[in-house]
Structures are given as structure tokens and as C-alpha cells.
């Protein structure tokens, strides 16, 4: 009995018990369903072992949407709790756990997964490749992310969630002030997921450098691919910092080291420093792919080539360098001197310049274009004003002396949500809607999509604009309740209505997926948006080898030129195609990671040893395995291509 006590949730409420039952029942229902419909074989051979970048992308997408739901429910609970003064819906401890998991889930498991989903699906198609450079590593990346996310979500029902904020600052996150195991979940789950992200970073850099179609020079790459390249460069250079910081934090919590303690030579502030050395580039890791998506969408639906391609590329590169030079602005108030704050204040403001260049380039792309107000375009148009408001308030926060006033108030919360929601969520929804026909062979309903957009856009404004006011009035961030005389009530109530609008938008998106899957036409051709880049040059749904013949490129918009300038994309004959084999190893290995992580969280060492041995054995097997892939014969490719032609035309 003593053994099981450690798994108990520290602040149990009826809701948590109900959730436990619900999660248990759902799990049983899913497993029973798969067994009943005899889908285990299909699941294993088509999804769990797949190394196909398109399927991995779709799995990322599904996970991201699930995590968006989870993080969104957290957000709704927070807004509901603060909607009225003195509300007692949640206790202080629950509120702490909820804002922590909201932040972690949204950043690490929703936003990161969403950008990786779109990069996975789109980048190899956009550069005319058959897959990523290391397909099996790609599968490993996904499963590491997935197991990290599942481990983190397990904290909700087993052992209790972390509660020291998504930034998990020490000394609050240390053993003394957070004695419960919740923060162990944070350290270990993020370590596992972060490993996956780092592998993705390396994988995509190699893919983009090495596997572009003949003729596609770096300066002929589509902008989404450019942004993906720079994003992955940032990942590769920024994530090791997080890895090290998490490892040090884990050692502090599990093995009694003193990296971030207050005594024995530890330096708690160093955690904040490391966290933001990673954390600021992370902001650009999230927003750069979004910029890439907007560039594609705006150019496609303005029926014009992108204005200022070169300056777009240069500004991405400049942002990627500046991204590493501004991190101190996250803790201007920690006590460093005026000189340090001034330096980082100036570098911070410098970022507004390349970002401004991009905004103007998009506006000039639309100038005199034939604008089509499709759903992806609406998100892109909504992004520009809302993101600008978020960005301008960011410049306000970047003024170090003024930041003493704004720091850790709701003003900050309003700022970063108004940057991240249009800068990431809008872009991901735009990208999802835009590439949906390529992924699934039918288009999402435009009418429902527009309803969803308006709910989300208005909901965002309504949810976060009031926070500027209540923040300036002094409402601190992460405050679980306030008294009536504070006068924050009305602003928080408005915020809550905004949150409901966002929830409604999400429900409409889910309904749209269901509705379109059921009723939308499958006869959409390969290029339903009349787009410009290579991903639309292949068939829909995309065959596993992507392109029957490698395309040959000599411009920035190869598909457009082949449609309207009469250039030929596919010049060669169909040949045998070399493809990678599926493998169950990544999935099995990450199960060991999951078990090892769980063991580490609860300091159950035998479990850790066994799981670590499992990982080592799999690494050993992989090292001595010979896998030369397989060939799809030209005959077979020709047959598939002919069948596709019959299907869609």
C-alpha cells in the first residue's frame, strides 16, 4: 500500500477522479475498438512502423490537435476561475497546476508538434524529394515527442502535475519549495520530447541541404522551405541549451546536486538564464515557419509572386541571428545592472526591423493582386493587424525601464498571446486548411471554416485586449483570484467570453473536419488552389514515393511556370524508385524511453535500469543491422500513376 501512495494526486478533487475514470474508460474503449474491428495489424504496419514523412506528418497533426484541445480546456478553466472576483471554482493549487500544464502543453506539445507536422508533410514535397534524409530517425523523432507528451499528460492522474509555471523557475521548482514529484514530470517529459525535436532539427537541415530537386538552388527554394531550414538551424543550436538545463534541473531534484539551489554555491538565476537562452530562439522556432506559411498562402491567393523574395530570406536569417542575442529581456527585473538591460533592450528592438520588412512585403504582395478570400487567406489577413498589436506591445515591454511596470502583469500575458495566437495558431490553421487537400484528398468546407475563423479572430481580441487594461491596472499574472474592489472583474469577464469564442471556433474546426470528410467532393484534382510550388505538382493523394519522376526546377515558382509559361517539370522517364523500409524499432525504443522516464519521475531505479538496458539493446541492434531499403519497380510506378489518373481526372 505504501508503494501505491506515491502515485496519488496531491490535491484530489471530484473532477480529477472523474477524469481518471473517463481516461480509463476511453483507453479501454479505444483498445477494445481496435481489437473488435481487427485493426491492430493495420495500425502496426501502416502507422506505428511507418517511416513515410507524410504519415509521420499526419500523426504529428493529430497529436497537435489533441494537445490543442487539452491546452484549450486548461485555458477555459483558468478564464472561468478568474471570470468573477472571489470565485471558488478552482483552488490555488489546482490553478497553479493548470496554468503550468497549459503553457507546457501549448508550447511543447501543440505548437512544436503543429509546425513539425506541416514541415514533415510539406518540405520534402516542396523540394521534390522522396522522403526526408533519415526516414527512420524521423519516426524516432515523432515517437519520442509522442511519448514525452503522453508522459507529461499522465501527470494529471498519476502523481500530480507540475505547478511552478511553464518556465519552472528555480528555486520555486527545486525540491525545497516543490517537494512533490510534479516537476520531475516536467523535467523528464520535456527532455524526452526535446530529444525528438533535436533529431528533427538535424534531419531537416540535411534534407533541405542535400535533397533538393535538380536546379533548385538555395535562392530558388519556396519561402516555407527557407523558413523551415532556418527554424531547424535554430532548433539545432537552441535545444541543446534546454537539454543541459533540464539535465541539471533533474540532477538537482533527483540526485541532490546544487546547480540551481540557493545554498552550497548554487545559482538559481542561472536556470532563468539558460531557460531563456533556449526560450527566446524557441519563440522564433515557432513563428518562422508561420511566416513561411503566410508567404505561401498570401502569394497563392493574391495570384502574385511574393514581393521582395530576397529581402524575405535576408530578414529570416537576420531574425535567426538576433534571436540568440535578446534573451535577457525576459528577466529585466532580476537585478542585473542598467548597462546589461540597455544592451538587451536595444537588440530586442532591433528585431522589429526584419519583422517589419516581412509585414510590408506581405502587404506589397497583396497590392494590386487578385485577392481571394479563402479560409487560409483570412487567417493570413487576420494575422497582420493582430500580430502587429502583439508586436508593438512587445517593443513596449522591451524598454527595460518601463518593463519594471509591466513585468509579470496581465499586460505581458496579453502581449505574448497576441503574438503567439496569430503568429502560430492562425498560421497553423491556415497551413492545415491550405495543405489539407494534399494530405487527405478533399477540401475543408469554406463556409464552416470562415465561421471558425471569425470566432477565433474575434475571440482572440476579446480574450486578450482586456488583459492590457487589467494588467496596467496591476493585475498580476498567475493570480488565481482577486477581490471585488480591485476592479478587475469586468475585464476578466470579457476575457472569459473571448475564451468561449475561441472554444466555439475549435468546435467548428472539428465539426468541419467531420462534415467535410463526410460530404466534401473527392474530385478536386491535384492543385485545387491554383498554387505555385512543387507540392501541388504531384498527385492527390500523394503516392508513397511522392514524385514518379524527379522534377527539374529552374525558377522560384516551378509549378506556376509549368502551368502558365509552358515549361516542363518532369523530363525523365519513370525509373525504379529506391525507398526506405518500415521499422518497428523507433516505436519500441520510445516505449522504453517512456518507461525509463516514468521510473525516473518516481525514482524507481530498477525500472530505469531495465528500460535503459532496453534502449541500449535497440541501439546495438540498429548499429549492426543492414537495411538497404527496397525498390519500387518502374512497372509498378507506371501502374499506380495510371490508376491515379483514372481516379482524379
Amino acid at each position: 500500500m505504501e508503494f501505491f501512495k506515491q502515485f496519488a494526486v496531491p490535491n484530489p478533487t471530484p473532477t480529477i477522479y472523474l477524469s481518471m475514470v473517463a481516461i480509463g474508460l476511453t483507453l479501454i474503449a479505444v483498445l477494445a475498438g481496435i481489437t473488435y474491428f481487427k485493426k491492430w495489424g493495420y495500425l502496426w504496419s501502416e502507422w506505428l512502423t511507418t517511416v513515410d514523412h507524410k504519415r509521420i506528418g499526419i500523426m504529428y497533426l493529430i497529436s497537435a490537435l489533441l494537445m490543442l484541445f487539452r491546452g484549450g480546456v486548461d485555458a477555459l478553466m483558468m478564464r472561468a476561475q478568474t471570470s468573477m472576483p472571489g470565485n471558488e471554482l478552482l483552488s490555488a493549487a489546482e490553478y497553479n497546476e493548470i496554468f503550468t500544464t497549459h503553457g507546457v502543453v501549448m508550447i511543447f506539445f501543440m505548437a512544436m508538434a503543429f509546425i513539425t507536422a506541416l514541415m514533415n508533410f510539406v518540405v520534402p514535397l516542396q523540394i521534390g524529394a522522396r522522403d526526408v534524409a533519415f526516414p527512420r530517425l524521423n519516426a524516432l523523432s515523432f515517437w519520442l515527442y509522442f511519448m514525452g507528451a503522453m508522459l507529461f499528460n499522465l501527470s494529471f492522474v498519476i502523481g500530480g502535475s507540475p505547478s511552478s509555471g511553464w518556465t519552472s523557475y528555480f528555486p520555486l521548482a527545486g525540491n525545497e519549495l516543490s517537494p512533490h514529484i510534479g516537476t520531475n514530470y516536467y523535467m523528464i517529459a520535456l527532455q524526452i520530447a526535446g530529444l525528438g525535436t533535436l533529431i528533427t532539427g538535424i534531419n531537416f537541415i540535411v534534407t533541405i541541404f542535400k535533397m533538393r530537386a535538380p536546379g533548385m538552388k538555395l535562392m530558388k527554394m519556396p519561402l516555407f522551405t527557407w523558413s523551415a531550414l532556418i527554424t531547424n538551424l535554430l532548433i539545432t543550436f537552441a535545444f541543446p541549451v534546454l537539454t543541459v538545463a533540464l539535465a541539471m534541473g533533474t540532477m538537482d531534484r533527483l540526485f541532490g546536486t546544487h546547480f540551481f539551489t540557493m545554498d552550497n554555491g548554487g545559482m538559481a538565476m542561472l536556470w532563468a538564464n539558460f531557460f531563456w537562452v533556449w526560450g527566446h530562439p524557441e519563440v522564433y522556432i515557432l513563428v518562422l515557419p508561420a511566416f513561411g506559411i503566410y508567404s505561401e498562402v498570401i502569394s497563392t491567393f493574391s495570384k502574385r509572386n511574393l514581393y521582395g523574395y530576397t529581402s524575405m530570406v535576408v530578414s529570416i536569417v537576420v531574425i535567426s541571428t538576433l534571436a540568440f542575442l535578446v534573451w535577457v529581456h525576459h528577466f529585466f527585473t532580476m537585478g542585473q545592472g542598467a548597462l546589461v538591460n540597455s544592451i538587451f533592450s536595444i537588440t530586442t528592438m532591433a528585431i522589429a526591423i526584419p519583422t517589419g520588412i516581412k509585414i510590408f512585403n506581405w502587404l506589397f504582395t497583396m497590392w494590386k493582386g487578385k485577392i481571394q478570400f479563402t479560409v487560409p487567406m483570412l487567417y493570413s489577413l487576420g494575422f497582420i493587424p493582430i500580430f502587429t498589436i502583439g508586436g508593438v506591445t512587445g517593443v513596449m515591454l522591451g524598454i527595460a525601464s518601463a518593463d519594471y511596470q509591466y513585468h509579470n502583469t496581465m499586460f505581458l500575458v496579453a502581449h505574448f498571446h497576441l503574438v503567439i495566437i496569430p503568429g502560430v495558431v492562425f498560421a497553423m490553421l491556415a497551413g492545415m486548411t491550405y495543405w489539407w487537400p494534399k494530405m487527405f484528398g478533399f477540401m475543408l468546407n469554406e463556409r464552416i471554416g470562415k465561421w471558425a475563423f471569425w470566432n477565433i479572430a474575434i475571440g482572440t481580441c476579446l480574450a486578450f485586449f482586456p488583459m492590457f487594461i487589467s494588467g496596467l491596472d496591476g493585475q498580476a499574472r498567475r493570480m488565481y483570484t482577486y477581490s471585488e474592489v480591485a476592479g478587475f472583474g469586468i475585464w476578466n469577464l470579457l476575457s472569459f467570453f473571448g475564451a468561449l469564442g475561441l472554444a466555439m471556433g475549435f468546435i467548428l474546426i472539428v465539426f468541419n473536419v467531420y462534415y467535410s470528410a463526410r460530404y466534401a467532393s473527392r474530385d478536386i484534382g491535384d492543385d485545387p488552389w491554383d498554387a505555385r510550388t512543387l507540392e501541388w505538382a504531384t498527385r492527390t493523394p500523394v503516392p508513397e514515393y511522392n514524385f514518379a519522376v524527379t522534377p527539374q526546377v529552374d525558377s522560384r515558382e516551378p509549378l506556376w511556370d509549368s502551368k502558365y509559361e509552358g515549361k516542363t517539370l518532369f523530363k525523365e522517364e519513370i525509373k525504379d524508385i529506391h525507398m526506405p523500409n518500415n521499422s518497428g524499432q523507433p516505436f519500441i525504443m520510445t516505449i522504453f524511453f517512456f518507461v525509463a522516464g516514468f521510473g525516473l519521475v518516481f525514482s524507481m531505479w530498477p525500472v530505469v535500469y531495465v528500460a535503459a538496458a532496453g534502449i541500449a539493446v535497440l541501439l546495438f541492434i540498429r548499429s549492426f543491422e543492414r537495411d538497404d531499403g527496397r525498390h519500387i519497380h518502374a512497372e509498378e510506378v507506371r501502374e499506380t500513376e495510371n490508376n491515379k489518373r483514372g481516379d482524379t481526372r
Partner: protein
Amino acid sequence: MRELFPANQVIGFVASLALTVIALLVYFLDMSFTVGMVVLLLTAFTQAGLQLVVFMHAGESPDSDSIYLNTYYGIFIALAIVFGSLLAMVWGY
């Protein structure tokens, strides 16, 4: 004959051995902490650069430009992080 003799590799090998010996001297000779650290840092980075260029063929492949660019970018970021952290946490605090 000159084409057959791998002069670069031999010089590189001897140089890397020499660098190792110099680094080892920090342990065997009695020098101050500062001097020791300076010697270790210099030999370590020279050694890493030597290995990268001579034995990992950084300059010999067709995409040596992007390899060097990535390396410089990495060095820049490492320096920015180390000295920025020192600035924020120690010197400017």
C-alpha cells in the same frame, strides 16, 4: 612521389599529438590555475579545429561552404551565449 605522400595528414597527426602533450603538461607541471585554463582552452579549440579540417574533411566536399558557415554560426552563438551569460549573471550584475 609528392602526390602519394599524405603530408597534410602526417603534419596534422603530429600536430594533434603535440597539442595533446601540451595539454597534458598542465597536469604534470606546476602552473597557476589561470595559466592552466588558458593553455587548456587554446589547445582544446585548436585541436577541435584541426580535427574538423584535416581529419573530418570539412573543406573537401562540394558543400564545404555551408559546413564552414554552419561552424562559424555555431561558434558565434556559443560565444554569444557564454559571454552574454557572464555579462548578465556576473559582470553586469
